[in-house]
């Protein structure tokens, strides 16, 4: 008997078919990977499993018993536990409090902390999930928070564990550790469903792989018969081409940071004594776990904040004016971290968003908007960058993430920038868009630009960068030549476990 069985699940939203007749099963003690791009239907399927949505057709069985559709409580009672990509923990409570949250009936006056404490310790010992029950969530690292999420699911006697992109926020070493725990769990009889789009992880961890594309189940393979290439092709539906790396002779320095520090503002990490130089015709990849100062560094380079100490030289001259418009005018292309919230104004029309940082510089006598010119240049860029939309007067919020990123690239790269600050430019995009974005960045490098590529995706960093720097706790190590450093070393530096003498060269 199968542990979990999806039978002919169909779900559509309006005219969009999110799940089209999906049937799949999960055996006892099995790790099944669910692979698919954004929008392939993975999340919808899991939402149906958890009763957030009711499927239009089809049903789910747990250990042969039909699951009540549309009831989260029923799913939890059936022993399904989910670890979300974004943690659902209360920062100001302790680990123990978070874990028992919601498990106790309202009518009980005294919470049974003692018993919970014992159960928690048992679980943590049994699966090697070491955690201090009395620690405050706010004080934990990302990896530890994830451990709490897993224990939380186990505490509720989950026998089926769903992990949604669990490694997105982890260093390679933390991922390794997670995998060991997962393997321990399946040995004890649990079943695990692992959702990801990172192929090498899926190949490492799972017994069986199911691939979704455009809401359809397009493939099912046992892991030993699968390869990275075949999976990628199945996921995307065609051969995937990534931009080819080409080493160029690097030119003059475009950006030089000397002892740059930025004191933390509310809720963000600070930057301390950063030294880094980026040259023409090179891409420097900045690796690091989110929240280690990338945002602070990006905000300085994007002209959104001025350093509290230190000096920034742009194209050989000390930058005195931290102003996005000024930077753009002097030849800096800025690709923001959050494309929909920061990169464009969804409620405004496309041509208006094409103006962006150049609103004033492109205005007639710096006051009247030159709409005719703006619309015609928007039209040109829409064609050139193949932005799928209804034209320059369409509302920007109607565009897909990939098309919004194309708009941002078109806006910033069409001016032939000399320096590009790209903050997670490919995050959350589908394969087609990723290769487009990466190709544009590589093209800009060939044309002579220097690029700082901030990313959490080490594959991306290693594929594109000439040199790699690592940021941890506001400090930067490197940059190192990308062929002289291993993923493993970078991973250790990302978690602060490896320190090298800074190889700072101009």
């Amino acid at each position, binding site marked *: 008997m199968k542990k979990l069985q999806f039978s002919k699940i169909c779900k559509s939203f309006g005219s969009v078919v999110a799940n089209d007749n999906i049937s799949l099963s999960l055996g006892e003690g099995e790790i099944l990977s669910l692979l698919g791009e954004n929008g392939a239907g993975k999340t919808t399927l899991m939402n149906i499993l958890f009763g957030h949505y009711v499927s239009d057709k089809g049903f789910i069985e747990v250990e042969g018993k039909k699951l009540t559709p549309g009831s989260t409580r029923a799913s939890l009672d059936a022993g399904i536990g989910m670890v979300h990509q974004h943690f659902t923990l209360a920062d100001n409570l302790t680990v123990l409090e978070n874990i028992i949250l919601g498990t106790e009936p309202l009518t009980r006056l005294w919470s049974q902390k003692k018993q919970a404490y014992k159960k928690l310790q048992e679980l943590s010992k049994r699966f090697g999930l070491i955690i201090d029950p009395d620690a405050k969530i706010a004080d934990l690292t990302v990896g530890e928070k994830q451990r709490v999420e897993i224990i939380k699911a186990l505490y509720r006697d989950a026998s089926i564990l769903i992990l949604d992109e669990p490694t997105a926020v982890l260093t390679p070493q933390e991922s390794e550790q997670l995998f060991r725990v997962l393997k321990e769990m399946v040995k004890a009889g649990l079943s695990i469903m692992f959702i990801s789009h990172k192929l090498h992880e899926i190949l490492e961890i799972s017994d069986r792989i199911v691939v979704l594309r455009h809401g359809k189940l397009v493939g099912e393979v046992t892991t030993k018969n699968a390869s990275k290439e075949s999976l990628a092709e199945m996921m995307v539906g065609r051969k995937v081409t990534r931009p080819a790396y080409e080493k160029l002779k690097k030119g003059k320095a475009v950006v030089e940071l000397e002892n740059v520090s930025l004191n933390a503002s509310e809720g963000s990490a600070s930057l301390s004594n950063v030294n880094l130089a980026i040259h023409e015709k090179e891409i420097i990849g900045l690796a690091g776990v989110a929240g280690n100062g990338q945002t602070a560094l990006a905000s300085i380079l994007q002209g959104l904040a001025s350093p509290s100490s230190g000096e920034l030289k742009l194209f050989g001259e000390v930058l005195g004016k931290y102003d996005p418009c000024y930077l753009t005018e002097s030849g800096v292309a*800025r690709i923001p971290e959050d494309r929909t919230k920061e990169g464009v*104004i969804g409620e405004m029309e496309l041509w208006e968003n094409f103006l962006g940082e150049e609103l004033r510089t492109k205005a007639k006598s710096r*006051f009247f908007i030159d709409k005719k010119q703006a619309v015609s240049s928007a039209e040109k860029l829409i064609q050139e960058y193949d932005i799928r939309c209804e034209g320059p007067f369409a509302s920007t919020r109607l565009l897909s993430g990939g098309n919004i990123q194309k708009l941002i690239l078109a806006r910033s790269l069409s001016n032939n920038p000399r320096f590009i600050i790209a903050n997670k430019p490919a995050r959350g995009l589908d394969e087609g868009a990723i290769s487009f974005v990466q190709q544009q960045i590589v093209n800009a490098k060939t044309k002579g630009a220097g690029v700082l590529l901030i990313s959490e995706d080490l594959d991306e960093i290693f594929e594109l960068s000439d040199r790699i720097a690592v940021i941890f706790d506001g400090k930067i190590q490197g940059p190192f030549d990308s062929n002289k450093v291993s993923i493993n070393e970078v991973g250790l530096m990302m978690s602060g476990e490896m320190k090298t003498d800074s190889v700072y060269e101009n």
Partner: protein
Amino acid sequence: MRINTRTNTPVWLIALLPILSIGVAFIIGACFILWAGESPFKAYAALIKGSLGSTFAITESLARATPLIFTGLAAAVAFRAKFWNIGAEGQLYCGAMAATLVGTGVIDLPAPIMIPMLFIAGAVAGCLILLVPVVLKTHMKVDEVVTTLLLNFVILLFVNMLLEGPWKDPMAMGWPQAARIIDNGVLPTIVAKSRLHLGIIVALIMSVLMWAILRFTVWGYEIRAVGHNQQASTFYGISINKSVLMVALFSGGLAGMAGVSEVAGLKGYLTLTLSPGFGYTGIAVAMLAQLHPIGVIISAIFLASIYVGADAMSRTIDIPNYIADILVAISLLSVLVGAMLTRYRIVWGK
């Protein structure tokens, strides 16, 4: 039943929305009139006759609409940038005070200079008083809703103090009112034997001006951008604080001009009854116009007609003029609900 997001909203739907909302308001209003024991047809006929039935009625409605256009614009501009200026009432009185200060004999210049000077003085006064909430917001993150609203009461009490004390006109036989605006400062009437004065022309010019600023200039872009998305605006290099300041200057200035227009155009002197809540009604005007400066003209005239018509109606038949407030309130609610329906579509069935 499901609610879907509309991918695009046709223009005709946006234009239809206020009209439908007003229709809904009149239908629901009819129930209240029935409840009061009168025929809605008779009542509405009296209302329309009283607001549009004669040249005099029309000029009265337009005269009432004049301050509402100013305060409506004040709210519309501010709300576009999500700066919630609820203090147009106070700013209106500040404008009126400035007009009284400058226009009651301290200086006497020919009308073509005197009148613009009064408007400028009033606008500056409206701006200055709004600077208090703006600085508190930009420097200390104090919520402007609270500060602008509370300032209204402070200003009204201050006006009261002036009218009972230093500014009290000895010729007014004990009434708490200030001295008259001198002849050169009075806004001339533009229709003979009516109270409709030059103020409405100024109001119309300001509407067109605000529309042009919002639509064709960098300032307008920045105001709209800040209203939609502050994070992206910052990324585009737009200073949020500067935009808020700019919007506040427009908004306070327009509200101040409403005060000038009332003092120098309609009343002739400052009293505490200068504004029956024009500042607050301006918010309704702006919302009904969906924050569009040209729409403000139409919705101000509409609301003014209802108020003027309801006054006339209550004189001819036995319905209290509070029915006007009911009609205005319901049309406003309908617009708010309707505005949601322009963005979402309700789909019946599965």
